[in-house]
């Protein structure tokens, strides 16, 4: 099952520091919601166990996240693979920055989900995923703005 999400966030910080933090696995590790057992593997990759909750249905996914391509100072791609509780997911995402203080971050993500979670259908998952992703980016935005102060 495939899911496409996109959006944009405005971050009150210089674009260079936004870019630097968004491609820094150690920083991203601090912004993951409901994460446990987080290991930063190197500058661009990490592993973690995250709790995914869809209504009363919760599952744990072991994920690997890696920055796969960078075109400083504006573009980068991230890949996430996850597995657990009978589900598998592969996410390809990218972002593009423009402006500075505020920096506009346009992002998109394509997810391929199989197994139990796929059975919920994209109509439902898109609603939950949009909400979750919005929370994640809100968290990232706040964290970057805190660092920029």
């Amino acid at each position, binding site marked *: *099952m*495939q899911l496409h999400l996109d959006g944009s966030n405005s971050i009150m910080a210089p674009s260079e520091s936004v870019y630097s933090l968004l491609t820094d696995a150690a920083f991203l590790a601090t912004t993951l919601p409901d994460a446990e057992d987080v290991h930063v593997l190197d500058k661009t990759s990490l592993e973690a166990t995250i709790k995914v909750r*869809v*209504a*009363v*249905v919760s599952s744990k996914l072991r994920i690997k996240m890696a920055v796969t391509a960078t075109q400083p100072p504006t573009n980068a791609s991230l890949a996430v693979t996850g597995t657990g509780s009978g589900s598998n997911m592969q996410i390809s995402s990218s972002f593009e920055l423009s402006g500075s203080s505020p920096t506009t971050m346009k992002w998109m993500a394509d997810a391929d989900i*199989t197994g*139990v979670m*796929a*059975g*919920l*259908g*994209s*109509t*439902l998952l898109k*609603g*939950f995923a949009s*909400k979750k992703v919005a929370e994640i980016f809100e968290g990232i935005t706040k964290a970057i703005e805190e660092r920029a102060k």
Partner: protein
Amino acid sequence: MEALFDASVQEVSRLLGLTDAEKSVLEDADAAASELVTSEFESYVQRKYNDQVPVILRRHNLMGVPIASKYGGRGARQLVQALFMERMGQVGMGVVTFADVHQCLGSLVIQDWGNEEQRSRYLPRAATGDVVLAYGLTEPEAGSDPGSLKTTFVRDGSSYRLTGSKYLISNGSVATNMIVFAYPAEGGKGPSAFVVDTKQKGFEVDMRLEEKVGLFTSDTSLLSLTDLAVPKEDLLGVEGKGFSVAYSALLNGRIGIGSGCVGVMEDCLNQVRERATSRVQHGKPIGKHQLIQKQVAFIESSLESCRWLVYRAALKKDEYEKDISNLALRGEADRLSAVAKYMSSRSAFESADRALQIFGGFGYSIMSPVAKHFLDTRVARIYEGTDEIMELKIASSVLGREFEAYR
């Protein structure tokens, strides 16, 4: 807009014409439906009433879709109401049931049968959602035969006093007001219709029926009326002519349920398209197996045949609304609404069953998007006229009134 709904709206607009205001109602319906998906799922798996339905409909100004604009509603004709219900049906029959009862069985009845004072008192608040309506016809001993109603009323000065039980009442415990049908205790005349205030002393919710086969997100209640005072201003229509009120409500309601079932088939089609193209078994997507394609073909054919049946019934009702003294037109609208409801509810149930089959084991969980439709559409073959009552109505409309089997 959701793709299948957008296709419906575009085609209806091209062939029949939709005004900008009507398109705006349908855009709002699409936005509300998208917003309803998560709360509907959360409530469904917890098997509880979805209290977000009136909240979200209200936020999108959709509580009074068929209520005339002079009373604060959107003034939708039956065809637009049908399209609205179609989009709600994609989310689920729980949403359809709430909207159908509040709008088609409640608001439209007050609009059609109420006097100006009643319309002005109830409809603006029904359009905002401050008033939520239920429809109290069914009783423990009166289902398909409303002639068996046991609820009675007596006159008491400037009021009536009602006593009896109402059973399987959708919105029953969440409504602020309910259309209630009761016979005079002294006998003689036919039943009368009343608008009852559910906060009045003498109105009690005996039971919220939560152990249903499906339709978990819709409120269904057993209600008691004990010497319940109803001011004479809340008699609806003419005393003794309650059946006319009841049957006209059901005509509206049946088109609403048929439309909701079309939406269910659309969602079944969306879900099986996704499942059949992404689920891999025996080395290929299951959609490449011919027996899966057979199920997909059934759902698609059912959807296309029922869609226009429902629109035709809605158009006939709109035609009748412009010429309400024309009994032949009313009979046609009644016949077509029965055909639309009969075929759509059966087809939606069968489509949901086939969609569940495509989902395999996962389809047997209420977490799956199609199990909900399978469980919920079963009641569409029962409420607002059972399959059997629809068959009798349809057959007698062909053979003539002298062949009415329930006479």
